[in-house]
């Protein structure tokens, strides 16, 4: 066990380095209103975050991460551009027997800047690389923006694209939807029965027949979706060639330089990804300017696509076998729009776990 004082000292060292890099140190409450986090992550977060009750403020959560309060503070009264750093405990429930810590320090760095987002991406990644040097970590990068651009560029209905985009962070669900939209998976029996039923009459007549009306979901909402289902059943599947490109993209894992050539190669067939690929290229250039060897830097197109995340562009992790990620981060432009009540600013950042850094240093000493 690494002594807590050593972990705290490591955290302070990293925080000082972030401040040195131009960040303003900020604090966040440990008790966060549960409503905001639940609206953002959904009920799934209850399995990961500690929930408690405040007699006045209602349901609260022990801070599961800093990003949400830091973004909220910036959106409420931050000047632009801004760089923030923080150090403090976060709390995550762990599976029985996992042996993972449920309370640990996080030290983070967040950049809110409208100019040259790729340069900001490279700034964060290079800073983390420098601070974690000598620990023999394996950096992995990704770019959820390319995947999202590919979905937006599919030749299919807006409804299908929206359904896919909504589940980008739930890979199993995403795959099931894509399989169905591409005609690779059969229409589920339940859906066929439903379509059969919907053919029996107008939606309003069917609603009428179904008996007493209960609940908040109105007849117009029900009818609208019923009509959309019938329309969707008549939609032709996503073209096999286009679907193949998307499946290929989902499993793309290569050194970043190779990944770029590969993406350039498929861009003519999937032109919608070109702006995202251009951004990827600009980022690699910015990374190279910071001395990152993009010829060997690992790139995985699906990196960062796990539940309870919000990254929508560049993503990165610094990994060590047998440990949770020592550091991770990415771009979360959309989150600032969600939390900013209409306002929006491109943002990128990441966190390091000082406890893991201290353990690695202790093992090396």
């Amino acid at each position, binding site marked *: 066990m690494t002594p807590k004082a050593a972990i705290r000292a490591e955290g302070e060292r990293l925080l000082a380095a972030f401040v040195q890099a131009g960040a303003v140190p900020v604090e966040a409450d440990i008790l966060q209103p549960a409503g905001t986090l*639940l*609206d953002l992550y*959904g*009920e*799934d977060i*209850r*399995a990961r975050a500690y929930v408690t009750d405040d007699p006045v403020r209602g349901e609260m959560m022990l801070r599961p991460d800093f990003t949400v309060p830091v973004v909220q503070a910036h959106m409420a009264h931050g000047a632009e551009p801004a760089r923030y750093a923080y150090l403090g405990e976060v709390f995550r429930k762990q599976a*029985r*027997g996992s042996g993972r810590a449920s309370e640990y320090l996080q030290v983070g760095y967040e950049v809110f800047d409208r100019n040259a987002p790729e340069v900001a991406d490279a700034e964060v990644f290079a800073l983390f690389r420098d601070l974690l040097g000598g620990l023999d970590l394996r950096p992995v990068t990704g770019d959820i923006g390319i995947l999202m651009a590919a979905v937006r560029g599919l030749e299919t209905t807006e409804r299908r694209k929206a*359904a896919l985009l*909504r*589940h980008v962070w*739930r890979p*199993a*669900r*995403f795959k*099931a939807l894509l399989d169905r939209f591409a005609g690779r998976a059969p229409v*589920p*029996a*339940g*859906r066929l*029965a*439903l379509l059969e*039923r*919907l053919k029996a009459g107008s*939606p309003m007549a*069917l*609603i009428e027949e*179904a*008996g*007493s*009306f*209960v*609940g*908040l*979901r109105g*007849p117009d*909402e*029900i009818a*609208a*979706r*019923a009509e959309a*289902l019938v329309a969707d059943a008549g939609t032709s599947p996503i073209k096999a060639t286009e679907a193949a490109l998307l499946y290929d993209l989902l499993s793309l894992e290569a050194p970043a330089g190779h990944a770029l050539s590969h993406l350039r190669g498929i861009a003519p067939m999937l032109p919608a990804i070109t702006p995202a690929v251009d951004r990827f290229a600009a980022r690699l250039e910015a990374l190279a300017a910071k001395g990152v060897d993009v010829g060997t830097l690992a790139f995985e197109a699906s990196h960062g696509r796990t*539940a309870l995340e919000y990254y929508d562009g560049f993503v990165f992790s610094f990994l060590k076998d047998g440990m949770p990620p020592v550091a991770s981060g990415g771009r979360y432009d959309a989150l600032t729009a969600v939390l900013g009540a209409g306002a929006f600013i491109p943002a990128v950042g990441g966190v390091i776990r000082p406890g893991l850094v201290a353990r690695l240093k202790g093992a090396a000493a």
Partner: protein
Amino acid sequence: MIRVGVPSKGRLMQDCFDWFGARGVVMRRSGSDREYSGVVEGVEGVVPVLLSAGEIPRELAAGRIHLGVTGSDLVREQLGADEVAEVAKLGFGQADLVIAVPNVWIDVETVDDLDAAAAAFRKTHGHRLRIATKYHQLVRDFLQAQGVADYQLVDSQGATEGTVLNGTAEAIADITSSGETLRANHLRILSDGLIHSSQAVLWASRAAEWSAVDLAAYRSLAERLGVSGAPF
């Protein structure tokens, strides 16, 4: 002494006593009708502990009882996967935990439809689609595994079927055996909305202290009952 937690009242208690009785282990409440104590005849070293069925999982997990009879729904809801060992399914107390939606939702047949409806509902109403239940963990695990989003669980400890009619939820997840109460409240079960098929189960606690004497008593009890010779 092996302490066996058994439901303290009602149909579940009677079915439980009948199940043990049919295997030559006679359990009954001792003293007056209102006193919660019991005796066992036909086997040595075993004492019944009359408990609320809802509290038996917790007592098993804490190791305060060695064995316990309660519904698999309650154990799955309250405990982690490896906290207790299943000794035998008892074949009574059958009920299904299901997701049900208003029958007038003619566009919703499956969990997939529920997910899509939840997305549209949230856009229209500004809040997540509410599902009333008391089985928070089971329902959340089920919906998470299926990748359902934009819903929220609202707690309902009773009369859950009425929550949609009364405007406090859009859908429910509750235990049903015949489905009649659901139908009476204008609800319909999703065709793939079965979360858990529950029945009464005899469980063994991993946390309880099993002395050599306890293990010997367990083996003779198990032989009588015709169940596994080791508690786990």
